[in-house]
């Protein structure tokens, strides 16, 4: 069997990257093992839990269910890429302020899912927040503080106008 690797070019957190990948490798594996971006977590590995969520062209997707060879030319945002000039992203800050992090394992996926929601809809209702994060499992917080944290950023956006 032909086991040649393919070169793919993609933008990860605004930076052009080129990696050689076998077709059977997932974006999650490439992010963690080749690009050493360990912020994207690996848990169920079959699409159920949401911890591996990254933004692909701004949309939250499961990196464990994406073949890396399909990411040619895509813009990938991981949790490492959302802080600006050393300052935490408002959603990251809100998660800290609201106590929405316990073990922290679901946090990168939660924050990126929330970012995609708030980018599309700066003032979502509580229902919309709950629906947006419905595919991200958290076994510690009971979700309320996560919903509060995302809501507080939405409220900030409202107050800022």
């Amino acid at each position: 069997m032909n086991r040649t690797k393919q070169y793919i070019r993609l933008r990860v957190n605004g930076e052009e990257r080129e990696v050689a990948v076998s077709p059977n490798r997932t974006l999650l594996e490439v992010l963690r093992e080749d690009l050493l971006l360990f912020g994207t977590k690996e848990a169920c590995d079959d699409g159920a839990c949401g911890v591996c969520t990254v933004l692909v062209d701004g949309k939250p997707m499961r990196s464990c269910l994406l073949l890396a060879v399909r990411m040619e030319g895509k813009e990938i945002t991981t949790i490492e890429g959302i802080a600006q000039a050393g300052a935490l992203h408002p959603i990251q800050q809100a998660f800290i302020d609201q106590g929405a992090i316990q073990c922290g394992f679901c946090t990168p996926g939660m924050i990126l899912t929330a970012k995609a929601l708030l980018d599309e809809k700066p003032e979502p209702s509580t229902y919309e927040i709950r629906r947006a994060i419905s595919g991200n499992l958290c076994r510690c917080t009971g979700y309320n503080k996560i919903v509060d944290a995302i809501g507080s950023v939405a409220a900030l956006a409202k107050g800022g106008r």
Partner: protein
Amino acid sequence: MRLPFFEYHEPASIDQAVRIILEHGGACRVLAGGTELLPLMKFGLARPSNLVSLAKIGGLSGISSKDGTLRIGAMTTLTELAANEAVRQQFTALHEAVESVAAPPIRNGATVAGNLCQNSRCLFYNQSDIWRKERPPCFKAGGDVCLAVPGGKKCFSVYQGDLAPALIALGGRITLRKEGSSRSAPCEALFSGQALKPIALDDEFVTEILLDTLPAGTHSAYRRLSVRSAIDYPLVSAAACLSFGRDGKIEAARVLIGAAGPAPLQARETADMLLGKKPHEIDLREVSQAAGRGAQMVDNLVLSGSYRRKMIPVVARRAIEAAIQEALGKERSR
């Protein structure tokens, strides 16, 4: 879990894709969004040596309308389908069905045809390699026992797609392509009725889904039962599509039950009982009780077969009621 090695093909046209599939035969699988196939491969339940991606083929995604027919490309993502205004306005059951599938990050990748052509599932089959090694292989895994029904003589795995019941209720059609030809068929033609191989396609694949404009006064709804609203597959679902005449009587009715066997189940008796009735004349209890006949429910999903059987009339009633409510609401707002 690592994906086993495979060769990856990214053809630029349907004809090219068809040629690759013919060349590799059964060792080849078509890759759409990958949200079903890749987990199956990780679990060792699918072992294709070649994957043919449809991602680079132009014209397979997107929703358009022409001559009163809505065309949904096979590679349209579930997110795009959920956001489509024409679908929301006219094909409520399909809109509700797609909104109920998994969670937003999955819907961003999953495709319409991929959802339609998904394999049937069972608590004793959809497990990791290690889990399955402790037991004899079941019918679905190529063995000769059923692990869900001791002594069972056949496979009882369940088709749990959300879109198919809604599309069949709405009279949807699919376009199938193979080398040198394409044909149109009603959505129900996709299903073999056999749990071992629920999708009746061999050398063809779905390129588009077509929905004709429904007659005025047609209303539809989709309801489902699942343990959690996100991620889970439906454990029972129902789609209802009712056409009301000018006199307020139901002139055409289709009720489909999902996750009740290897294919969506037509609740013909229920549909017949609705015909010729005005909303207030319908005995919802009696009508929905008839919906579960012919369903095949055994203990192979997270809720027991007997419970799921009892839930068929409940879910069917919710769908029929919602379609009637929509009809009454729209009448009032006219």
